[in-house]
C-alpha cells in the first residue's frame, strides 16, 4: 500500500516535469539536428521526437458537434531507411451528405547546414489529394529537402462530423516515440468509454474544464408599421471532460512470426460512444455493456429483423427437409443447401448488405446476408439456432463491449446440449468448423430478443495429418514404396482451399516438389469433395538417394523427407502469443525394408517428450523387425494459441524434435 502511494507521488512529479517542457511548433533545436541516433533504440531508422494529438468537440450551428483532431509531430530521420516517414497519408471518409476534411497543414523540414539551421517549407504543390474510392479520399504530402539527419515537423487538423465513429488513438508506431501527449476533450453530452489496448503501460489522467456554446437567435419584431430583425445571443455552459496521456520512450512495435495480426498488439486507446444526452432531450444509447451493445445490434434493421423473414425460402426448405428426421440431419441439410447456394462476395460485416430476401434471390451477399439466412432457416427447421457475433483475426480481439469490436457473424446450433458452429461463406468447411479467419478467441451468441452470452470459438479437436509409408531401400540407396496420407479438419480444409482447382498433374508436380523430388505414380484421392470426411491420398513412389552410402555403410534418416530438419523458432525471446489457430497432430508410421546383405548396426533411441501442462507432446518409437525396422512419430500441439511465457519451452521442445527426427540409422554389410 505504502509502495503504491510512493509510486503515485512519483508519477505526479514525473508528469509535471514533462508538462513543463512545452514543445513549440517551429522550435527545432540544433541538438535535435545533431543527434545521430536514438540511444534507447540505436537501430531505429527514424524517431518521433514529439507527438501531440488533441481531440476536441466543436459546435457548429449548422452542423452540430464535429470532432477536431489536431496532430503535431516532430520526427528525426536517422538514415535513408527513415525517409518513408517523410511521407504522410491521412485517409478521410466521405458520407453521402458530409465528409471529413484536413485543414491548416503546416510543415517544415529542418537541416543543419554548417552551423545554420536550414528550414524548408512544404508548398501547396507538394500536397496531393487522391480520391481513392467512393468513400475515401487520401490526403498525402511528402517533405521536401529530406536528408539523413533531417528533422521534419508538421501539424494539421482533421475535422470529422462522424462523432459516433470516433474509435481509437494509436499510441505506438513502428518507430520509437520519445515523447507524446494525447488529450481528448469531450463535452458532458457525450459519454465515451475508453479502453486500453496493447502491452504498454500508461496512466490516463482525468480532469474537467468549463465550456460554452453561443447561439445566435434571430427574432422578427413588428413594431407598429415598422418591421425589424433583432439578433440576440444565448449562451449554454457545459462541462468538458478531459482525459490525457503523457508517455515517454515508447518502444517501436517489432514484428514476430506466428502472430495473427501485429495490430492486435499495437498499443492504443480505444473509444466507444456509449450514449449521448443533449439538453432537453432523452438519452440515446450506443453501447455500454455487452448486453446493450448486442441489443443495439439486434435492434438494427439489418440484423434482428432479418431473422424473421421466412417466406422467401419456405418452399426450398420443405424440399430440403424431405425425409430428414433427426436434428443433425436437418442441420446438415440446411447448411449444405446454403453453403452451395450462396456465394460470398468477400465482404465482412454483421449487418446485412442486400438484406436476406434479396441476397437469397441473387445467391450472393456479405457474411451477414448469408449466415443470417442460415440462422433463420435453421430455426424454421425447428432447430435451436442463433447468430454469433465475431471479430475476425484481422479485426483484433474484442475485449470490451463495443460495436466496432465485431465485424462478422456466424451461426450456432445447439443439439443435445452441444454447440455446433456453422459458417456458410466458405465452400470447404464442414459443420462445427469455422474458417480460420473467424477463429478469434470468443464470440457472442445472440438469442431471441437480443439476450447475449459469450462463447469460446477456439476449436478443441485436433486437426490430423497422418502419413503411413512402406519403403524398401535398394543396394544403391534408392527408395521405392507406397504411401497413404490422411488429413482431417483444418488440414483437410487447407488442402481443399489450396488444391481444389488444380489439375491432378499440376498438383502432383507441386507435391513432388514439397517432398524433395519424390517421383509419384498411381495417385489416388478419396473424399476430395466430401467435406465431412478426411481427405485420403495414396500413391506409389520412387526416390533416388533415399539413403546415403558412404564406403560400405548406409545411413538412413528414419523419417526420410518428412523429418523436421529446421526449428521454426529461432529468436531468443518472444513477446506475443504463438498462434497456430487450432490444435493439431502430425503422425508418421514408416516401415522400412533394408536391402539384402545389410544389417542394422545402430539406431536412434525412442523418445517421449511433453512440454508445459500438456501443451505439446512428442513420441518417437523405433523398433527392428524381420525385414528392417519400423518408426512411429507423433507430434501434437494441443492448444491453438500458446502464451509467450511458454515460448522457451516450445523452442526447446522443437529443438529436441529436430534432433530426434534427424538422427540416422546405420546399416552395415553382413
Amino acid at each position: 500500500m505504502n509502495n503504491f502511494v510512493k509510486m503515485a507521488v512519483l508519477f505526479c512529479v514525473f508528469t509535471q516535469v514533462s508538462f513543463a517542457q512545452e514543445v513549440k511548433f517551429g522550435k527545432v533545436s540544433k541538438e535535435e539536428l545533431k543527434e545521430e541516433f536514438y540511444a534507447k533504440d540505436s537501430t531505429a531508422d527514424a524517431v518521433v521526437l514529439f507527438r501531440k494529438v488533441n481531440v476536441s468537440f466543436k459546435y457548429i450551428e449548422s452542423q452540430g458537434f464535429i470532432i477536431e483532431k489536431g496532430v503535431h509531430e516532430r520526427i528525426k530521420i536517422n538514415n535513408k531507411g527513415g525517409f518513408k516517414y517523410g511521407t504522410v497519408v491521412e485517409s478521410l471518409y466521405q458520407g453521402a451528405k458530409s465528409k471529413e476534411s484536413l485543414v491548416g497543414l503546416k510543415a517544415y523540414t529542418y537541416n543543419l547546414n554548417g552551423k545554420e539551421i536550414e528550414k524548408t517549407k512544404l508548398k501547396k504543390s507538394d500536397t496531393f489529394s487522391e480520391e481513392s474510392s467512393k468513400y475515401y479520399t487520401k490526403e498525402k504530402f511528402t517533405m521536401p529537402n529530406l536528408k539523413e539527419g533531417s528533422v521534419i515537423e508538421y501539424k494539421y487538423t482533421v475535422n470529422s462530423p462522424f462523432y459516433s465513429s470516433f474509435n481509437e488513438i494509436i499510441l505506438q508506431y513502428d518507430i520509437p516515440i520519445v515523447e507524446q501527449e494525447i488529450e481528448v476533450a469531450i463535452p458532458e453530452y457525450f459519454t465515451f468509454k475508453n479502453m486500453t489496448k496493447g502491452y504498454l503501460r500508461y496512466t490516463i489522467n482525468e480532469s474537467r474544464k468549463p465550456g460554452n456554446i453561443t447561439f445566435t437567435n434571430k427574432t422578427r419584431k413588428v413594431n407598429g408599421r415598422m418591421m425589424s430583425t433583432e439578433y440576440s445571443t444565448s449562451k449554454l455552459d457545459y462541462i468538458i471532460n478531459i482525459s490525457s496521456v503523457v508517455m515517454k520512450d515508447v518502444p517501436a512495435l517489432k514484428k514476430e512470426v506466428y502472430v495473427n495480426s501485429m495490430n492486435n498488439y499495437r498499443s492504443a486507446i480505444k473509444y466507444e460512444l456509449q450514449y449521448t444526452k443533449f439538453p432537453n432531450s432523452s438519452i440515446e444509447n450506443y453501447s455500454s455493456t455487452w448486453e446493450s451493445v448486442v441489443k443495439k445490434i439486434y435492434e438494427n434493421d439489418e440484423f434482428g429483423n432479418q431473422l424473421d423473414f421466412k417466406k422467401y425460402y419456405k418452399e426450398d426448405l420443405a424440399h430440403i427437409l424431405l425425409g430428414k428426421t433427426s436434428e443433425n440431419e436437418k442441420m446438415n441439410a440446411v447448411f449444405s443447401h446454403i453453403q452451395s447456394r450462396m456465394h460470398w462476395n468477400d465482404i465482412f460485416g454483421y449487418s446485412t448488405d442486400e438484406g436476406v430476401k434479396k441476397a437469397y434471390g441473387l445467391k450472393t451477399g456479405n457474411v451477414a446476408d448469408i449466415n443470417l439466412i442460415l440462422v433463420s432457416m435453421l430455426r424454421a427447421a425447428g432447430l435451436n439456432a442463433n447468430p454469433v457475433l465475431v471479430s475476425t483475426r484481422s479485426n483484433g480481439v474484442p475485449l470490451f463491449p463495443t460495436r466496432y469490436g465485431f465485424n462478422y457473424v456466424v451461426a450456432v446450433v445447439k443439439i443435445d446440449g452441444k454447440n455446433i458452429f456453422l459458417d456458410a461463406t466458405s465452400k470447404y468447411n464442414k459443420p462445427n468448423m469455422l474458417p480460420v479467419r473467424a477463429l478469434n478467441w470468443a464470440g457472442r451468441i445472440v438469442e431471441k430478443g437480443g439476450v447475449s452470452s459469450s462463447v469460446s470459438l477456439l476449436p478443441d479437436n485436433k486437426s490430423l495429418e497422418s502419413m503411413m509409408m512402406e519403403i524398401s531401400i535398394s543396394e544403391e540407396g534408392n527408395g521405392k514404396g507406397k504411401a497413404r496420407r490422411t488429413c482431417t479438419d483444418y488440414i483437410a480444409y487447407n488442402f481443399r482451399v489450396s488444391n481444389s482447382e488444380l489439375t491432378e498433374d499440376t498438383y502432383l508436380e507441386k507435391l513432388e516438389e514439397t517432398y524433395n523430388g519424390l517421383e509419384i505414380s498411381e495417385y489416388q484421392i478419396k473424399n476430395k469433395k466430401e467435406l465431412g470426411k478426411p481427405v485420403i491420398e495414396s500413391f506409389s513412389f520412387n526416390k533416388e538417394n533415399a539413403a546415403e552410402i558412404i564406403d560400405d555403410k548406409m545411413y538412413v534418416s528414419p523419417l526420410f523427407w518428412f523429418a523436421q530438419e529446421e526449428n521454426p523458432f529461432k529468436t531468443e525471446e518472444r513477446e506475443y502469443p504463438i498462434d497456430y489457430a487450432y490444435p493439431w497432430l502430425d503422425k508418421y508410421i514408416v516401415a522400412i525394408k533394408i536391402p539384402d546383405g545389410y544389417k542394422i548396426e545402430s539406431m536412434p533411441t525412442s523418445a517421449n517428450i511433453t512440454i508445459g501442462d500438456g501443451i505439446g507432446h512428442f513420441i518417437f518409437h523405433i523398433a527392428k523387425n524381420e525385414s528392417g525396422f519400423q518408426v512411429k512419430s507423433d507430434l501434437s500441439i494441443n492448444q491453438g494459441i500458446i502464451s509467450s511465457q511458454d515460448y522457451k519451452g516450445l523452442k526447446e521442445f522443437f529443438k529436441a524434435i529436430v534432433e530426434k527426427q534427424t538422427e540416422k540409422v546405420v546399416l552395415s554389410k553382413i
Partner: protein
Amino acid sequence: MRFSCYLVLFLCSTFSFSQDFQYSSLLINKELKDNANAVVRLDEMVVDILAQDNMIIKSKRVVTVFNKKGGKHVNAYAGYSNSTKVKFIKAVIYDALGNEIKKIKEKDFVDVSAVSGGTLYSDYRVKYIDYTPIGYPYTVVFEKEIQTKNTVTIPSWYFLDGYLVSVEKSIYTVNFPNEDLKPRIAKKNEEEYRVELDEKSNSKTYSLNNIKAIKFENHSPDFRYIFPRLQVAMTKFHYEGYNATLSNWNEMGKWMYRNLIKERLNLPESTKTTIRRMVKDAITDSEKARIVYNYVQENTRYISVQEGIGGIQPISAAEVDRVKYGDCKGLTNYTKALLDVVGVKSNYSRVYASRDKQIDVDEDFPSFLGQTNHVILNIPRENKEDIWLECTSQKIPFGFVGDFTDNRNVFVVDKDGGRIIKTSAYLEKQNLQKIEAKINLLLDGAIKASVLIETRGVQYDNRFYMEDLDRDKILEYYQDTWPNINNLVLEDYAFDNNKREVKFIEDININAKSYARPSGERMLFSPNALNKNSYVPKRYRSRKLPFQVQRGYLDVDSYIISIPEDYGIEALPEPIEIVSEFGEYKASVLEQEDGTLKYERLFLLKSGAYPKEKYGEYRNFRKKVSKNDKAQVVLIKK
C-alpha cells in the same frame, strides 16, 4: 434415367433458340478446355484513328470462367485519366446455359484511383466490375469505348493474354484515314500460330482462332517471348499537347531531348557553384561523375508522382533541387543536369527494369512510349565501356546497375540522335561468392566457425543491403541462409562494403549446438556446412516450354575443419567433378597432415537458353549437385 437425359438436352436446345445461345458454355471445344481455368470466347478490339489527335478504341471481350482461378481473365476494367475518357462501358453476365443473370451498367462499375504501390500520386484511375460469381461456369460479355487525344498510346495486342486460359477468337482491327496515320505493326512469336491478316486501303485486321491454354512452367522465357502478339506504334502522333512524326530511334531521341529534356536541365546558381567546387580537384570525367553521383545519392530520395505529361517528361532539375526528391525520370535528369554543369556528357536512357527478366527494347521496332518502365543514365566513354547510373538508389555503388537493369538493350536519348545500346552485363564468373572458413567440430557435435564471405557482381547486389540491417535481422538472415545449421548463434560480425571495387565482405563468427549427430560409436556431419545448394528444378510430367537459366554465377568454397581428438575418420565422401553444358561442380574433402580436413568446392552455373528436351538433363545436373552438397563425413570413436 435415359429419359431425363433427353429431357435436359431438349430443354437446352429450346433455350438456345430463345436465349443468347452463343454465350452458353456447353459447346466449347474440348481442346480449349484442357488446362484452362477460363476460355476467352471472343476478344475483339477496333481502333479508329480519326485524326492525329483523336482515337477511339472499341472493344468487346467475352470470357467463360470455369472456376475461381479463371476469374482473373475476365479483365472487365477500363483505365482512364485526364486525357483518356471512358465513353461507354457495360458488362453482362450469363450462366452456363446462356441465360442473362446480371447486367452491370456504367454507374455500377467501381471507380478507384489506380495508384500502384510506391507511387505517391497519379491521375490514372480505373473502373472495374466487382462481381461475385454465383456458379460456374459463367460468361461475362464486356464492352467498352475509350477516347483519347494521345494517339501515341495506341494499344498493342496479345492474342493470348495469360497462362491457363485459352482463346476461341481474337481479332484486332485498326482503321486509319490515310497512309500518314497508318500505324506500324509487327507480329511477334507467330511461328507456331497462324495469324491471319486482312488488309484494305484504310484498315488492317489481324485474327487468330483456337489458341490452346499454356501452362506456366518454371524457368520458361518471359511470356513476351512466347505468346503470339502484335506490336503497334504510330509514326505520326499526338501526346499530351505535342504533335510529332517519328519513325526511327535516332529522330525519336533528338525529339525527346529537344521537347522533354532540354528545357528541364536548369539549376540554381548556388547548386552549380557547389557542384563545381566539389569536382574541382577531379581530373577524369569518371572521377567527376563519381562525385556528382555521390552528391545525388546524398541529397535526394525517390518519390513517384505521375500526372499527365509527367508520365514521360521528367520534373525539372530545379524542382528536384528544391524538394530533393523525384521519380526515376526526375532524378536521372537531375543527375544529368549536374553532370552538364561540370562538363561531363551523359544521356537520359529508357529501360525495361526487372530483376528476374532481362527484357530488351526491340531495336527493330521503334516506339515512343512502349517497352520501357524505368530511366537510367548513360555516360558514354571513348574506347571504354560506358558507365551506367541508377539514380533512384541512395546506396548502390557508382557505375553499378545490378540485376535490375543489366545486360539488356535500352533506348539512349542523345541530343545528337537516339540509339539502342546494351547495358553492362554481370556474367557467370563476375557473380562471384567466395567463402573461406575455419570450422571447429567439438566433442558434443557442436561447431564453432569463423567465416569470411566475399561477394561480387549480382551476388554483391544481393548482399550489400545487409550493412543497414540491425543485429536481429542479420541473425535472421544467417538463420535463413543456413537452415541446415540449427541453433545458430552469431557471436560477432563485421561487414565491409567496398563500393569502389563493388565487393562486399562478411567477416563473422558463429557457433551452433548439435550440428553433428552422434549415432552410437559414430558421429556424422556434413563438411559443406555453409553453402548447400539443395535446389532441384521441379519435375514436369511433360515439359512444353523451353527453359533458360537467366543468371549464371560462381561459388568457390574452402573450409578447414578440425575434428575432436577422441574421434578418428572412418569414411570420407569421394572427390567428385562434374562438367556439363549447364556448368561445373567440384567437391572434395581430404585429410591433411595435421589431422584436419580440407573441404573444397566449386560450383559454376552458366546462364543460357535451352530447348525443353534438355530440361531432364538440367534437373539431373542440379540433382547431382544437391546430392553431393549433402555428402557426409563419418567419424568413429578412437
